[in-house]
């Protein structure tokens, strides 16, 4: 395991035992390459070997649905009640009252700075003409969040207090956080039938893991003495938990509340693909479908502003605890006054019928029309340039990664044929390159070059399944030990057996393509931000905002210019996934100890030497964590990007959703989660090795 750290000295090539494994894999790769026609099943997994798991699940679901229908429908109706009630209230209350209430909340949470932000944002929402849709969304969020928090609190207590919880909750949470958003909707759809309740329940479940994690983390970090002080006072376990431990852990729990609120909002927006609730997500989606991007943009901004308001206020509450404020005594008093004022205002406005219904905001309509016009003009005028950008990336980046150089170099794409002699020289160059790199920087790097060259030749989708599984399993085993190796084997085996392999590889390809670009872009910005405080100060709030925006919104600007297709999906994924790359790179570089740098300067290193040979290696573990996060973000966005034209698992999940096919949805959703977890396990083990290497 530690072999890739110990052996970094130049020519002193010691081959540890693991080399034999790699040689076997290379042999397998050669067999698949040369004798492909005699062992086709090693290259392409035969269709009649599939396990029809999806069908079995459907049979089970049909049976279960028939039994559970009365119960689920009852629960659905039960939840529909408060949601409809909240919806009525939010629609009934004059919007100035709501805006004022938000402002007061912001004032209480933080101060006048936040009030200005929140008032401007909510005024926009009110005046954009999307007030009704926004309030419908808020009605869903308003019921989903408390449900999710309660669920999260319960599970968090379970996860921290019981032995079984400590054992089984972490993997369940991992799974819950990697299962794609759409996949949550499918079983809900089948169980609860079309309607907003599906989004409500899916959102409550989807959003609870951060709450669970933070509650359990918070409870576990309550000092033992405090727990014992409560016990020695003779507290019952209820008193101990609710009077002492939970309040003492509140700082951490509030972080969880903030994250859960944001996740719930994100899911509610995504759930609008089910349709039929006239919420703000649906507004964006339907205008996008009609290619009225001006309207989508205006509505998209509403979503962004809702997200910002909710995030900033809940984050302010999370940061503002008893440690900073003294006593909260006067706030009860203030609360009553504020509530009274709001009610009076509400009554007055109602009486004069002001601010009750926002009429079609004409000006907003005309702005939207104007935007639509301008966008059409722009795309008309620069369409050729946009198309060539798209084609360039498609032919020279995406296609080679997908089908490999062997398939993608054609007169039509690259302007020439990939002839036999060229293929042979490519192979020779790669072998020499791998050996050269291996001699210079250690055999692992040489092996890496060989694997990449192989992948580039055959493409992600063209690479034989046997070689891919063998390579990843062995890699997992080498970096993370036997458990990781077995996990990778099991995960990929599941995908293969259930017949998801080809789709999965398409997802891997697009996710990989996006992750590479996100990381290159993000890491470059991170390097810049680490060396320049002004850049850092500008980038930071941008990153914060990008992280609060629900994924869905990223589709609007990309689709606007590049129509449906993989390139558009690629851009949308990059727009969402580059943030962690920036953050971890900057942090990693900034945390390099100044003493080390001084030593390097004294030894007469040039700035570029310092950067490449001191800073970058030391920041590497942190950057690897950033890369891992980037990949996870890319997987999350991949599924949403199915709306704008992808071909992988994401697309399959979306199709399963529209067809309400639970079996297909569950299997492809699980496959996606397993892919993400595979990448996560390998990357984390790798980063851990690098950290260990730094210490040692």
């Amino acid at each position, binding site marked *: 395991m530690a072999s890739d750290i110990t052996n970094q000295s130049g020519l002193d090539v010691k081959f540890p035992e693991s080399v034999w494994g790699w040689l076997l894999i290379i042999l397998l790769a050669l067999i698949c390459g040369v004798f492909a026609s005699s062992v086709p099943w090693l290259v392409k997994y035969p269709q009649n070997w599939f396990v029809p798991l999806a069908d079995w699940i459907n049979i089970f679901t049909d049976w279960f649905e028939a039994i559970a229908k009365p119960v689920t429908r009852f629960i659905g109706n039960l939840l529909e009640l408060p949601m409809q009630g909240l919806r009525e209230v939010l629609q009934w209350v004059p919007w100035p009252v709501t805006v004022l209430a938000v402002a007061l909340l912001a004032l209480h949470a933080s101060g006048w700075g936040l009030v200005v932000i929140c008032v401007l944002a909510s005024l926009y929402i009110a005046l954009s003409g999307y007030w009704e849709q926004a309030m419908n969304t808020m009605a869903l969020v308003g019921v989903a969040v408390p449900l999710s928090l309660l669920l999260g609190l319960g599970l968090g207590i379970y996860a921290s207090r019981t032995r079984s919880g400590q054992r089984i909750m972490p993997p369940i949470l991992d799974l819950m956080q990697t299962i794609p958003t759409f996949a949550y909707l499918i079983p809900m759809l089948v169980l609860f039938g079309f309607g907003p309740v599906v989004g409500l329940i899916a959102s409550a479940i989807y959003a609870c893991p951060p709450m669970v994690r933070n509650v359990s983390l918070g409870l576990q970090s309550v*000092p033992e*003495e405090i727990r014992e*002080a409560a016990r020695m*006072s*003779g507290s019952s376990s209820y008193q101990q938990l609710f009077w*002492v431990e939970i309040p003492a852990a509140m700082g951490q729990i509030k972080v969880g509340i903030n994250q859960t609120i944001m996740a719930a909002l994100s899911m509610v927006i995504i759930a609008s693909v089910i349709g039929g609730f006239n919420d703000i997500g649906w507004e964006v989606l339907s205008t996008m479908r009609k290619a009225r991007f001006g309207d989508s943009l205006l509505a998209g901004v509403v979503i962004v502003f809702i997200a910002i308001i909710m995030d900033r206020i809940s984050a302010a509450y999370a940061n503002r605890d*008893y440690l900073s404020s*003294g006593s909260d005594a006067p706030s009860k008093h203030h609360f009553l006054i504020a509530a009274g004022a709001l009610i009076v205002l509400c009554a007055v406005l109602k009486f004069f019928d002001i601010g009750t219904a926002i009429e079609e905001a004409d000006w907003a309509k005309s702005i939207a029309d104007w935007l639509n016009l301008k966008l059409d003009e722009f795309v008309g005028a620069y369409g050729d340039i946009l198309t060539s950008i798209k084609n360039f990336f498609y032919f020279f980046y995406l296609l080679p990664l997908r089908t490999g150089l062997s398939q993608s170099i054609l007169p039509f794409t690259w302007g020439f044929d990939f002839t036999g002699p060229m293929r042979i020289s490519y192979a020779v160059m790669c072998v020499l390159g791998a050996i050269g790199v291996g001699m210079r920087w250690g055999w692992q790097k040489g092996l890496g070059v060989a694997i990449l060259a192989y992948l580039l030749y055959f493409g992600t989708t063209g690479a034989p399944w046997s070689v891919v599984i063998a390579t990843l399993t062995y890699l997992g085993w080498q970096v993370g030990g036997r458990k990781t190796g077995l996990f990778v084997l099991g995960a990929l085996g599941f995908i293969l057996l259930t017949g998801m392999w080809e789709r999965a590889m398409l997802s891997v390809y697009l996710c990989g393509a996006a992750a590479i670009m996100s990381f290159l872009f993000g890491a470059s910005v991170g390097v810049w931000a680490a060396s320049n405080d002004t850049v850092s100060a500008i980038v930071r709030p941008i990153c914060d905002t990008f992280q609060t925006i629900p994924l869905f919104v990223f589709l609007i600007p990309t689709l606007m210019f590049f129509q449906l297709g993989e390139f558009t999906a690629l851009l949308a994924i990059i727009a969402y996934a580059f943030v962690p790359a920036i953050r971890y790179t900057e942090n990693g570089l900034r945390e390099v100890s100044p003493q080390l740098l001084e030593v390097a300067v004294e030894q007469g290193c040039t700035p570029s030497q310092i950067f490449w040979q001191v800073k970058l290696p030391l920041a590497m573990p942190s950057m690897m964590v950033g890369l891992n996060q980037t990949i996870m973000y890319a997987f999350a966005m991949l599924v949403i990007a199915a709306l704008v034209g992808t071909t992988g698992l994401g697309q399959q999940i979306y199709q399963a959703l529209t067809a309400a096919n639970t079996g297909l949805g569950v299997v492809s959703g699980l496959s996606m989660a397993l892919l993400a977890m595979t990448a996560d396990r390998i990357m984390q083990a790798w980063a851990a090795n690098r950290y260990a290497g730094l210490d040692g």
Partner: protein
Amino acid sequence: MAGEGKTALECRNLWRVFGDAHGGKLANSALPKGDDAIRLAEEMSSAGDIVACGDINLKIKDGEFFVLMGLSGSGKSTLMRCMSRLTEPSAGELLIDGEDFLGISDQELMEVRRRKMGMVFQHFGLFPHMSVRENVAFPLRVQGASEAERNAKADEMITLVGLDGREDAFPHQLSGGQKQRVGIARSLAVDPELWFLDEPFSALDPLIRWQMQSELLRLQTLFHKTIIFVTHDFMEAVRLADRIAIMKDGLVVQVGTPEDIVLNPATDYVAEFVKEAPRTKIIKISQLMEPLKTGKPKKSGGEALHCDMTLEDALSWSAVRGGALPVADEDGNMIGTVPPERLTAALSGGDDGE
């Protein structure tokens, strides 16, 4: 003070072992005694278990100030935590007011803690989200006392520990000494009979520590609690204790009054502690005196040492006199004499059987 009186808390063959190598060797029916117990403890340690308390036998009297003393890791905290059942003993018996304390139900245990026990922690264990008043009132709140009632009691306790005016402060706004005053006030709020203090002053500066010890003594003259006090500081133990139990590797190696221990350390381990102690301030004349051989005590002429005098005082007194010094008791009766050589011998430690 100490002396007669009934037993408040008693440990009989009490064990607490961490680890699971010892298996079923600690059956309550056949616990080893004396040297056998020591052998068993050694056996278990070499098998990889930690014997935090081995065969503890103690009787702590009502109103006694009892100190558990020993180096860090010697098992003091564990013993105290067994006594309050924050840790469950592995074997043995524990009696409070003569009644079995180990076999009671959770509900009863909760009641005992509510009514009879108070505990002060080394790192204060204050609830960070509660004000000083709420912290002190917490044990009353747990019992269901009304807000007015518990606030009145809390304010009374806060005054008692000298924190008037800080009722609404939060723990993070207080100094270490103030925090521990809150801890003390909270532990006394329900007027417990048994008062546990686990190194309550170890986290404080030496000057504050001295001050807090004085306050503790003052409180004890007011309340006469049965105190079980843990410390690793021998001077603190000597200053506060009626009796001290010295622990080493989970075993109690000596129990006695501070004077007993200073004059007759049972083992080298104890002697090590004693070396540090200012003997002149601890040893009392009554322990050095040769009692009168004959008859009833007679009145001294006023020219006598007092039997409660410390060695230090006696030395300065003797400097102006020669010959055997007469000793008188509280009523001024002559009860014995002390040869001056004995004072100097006691000073150097040559007196006590070395």
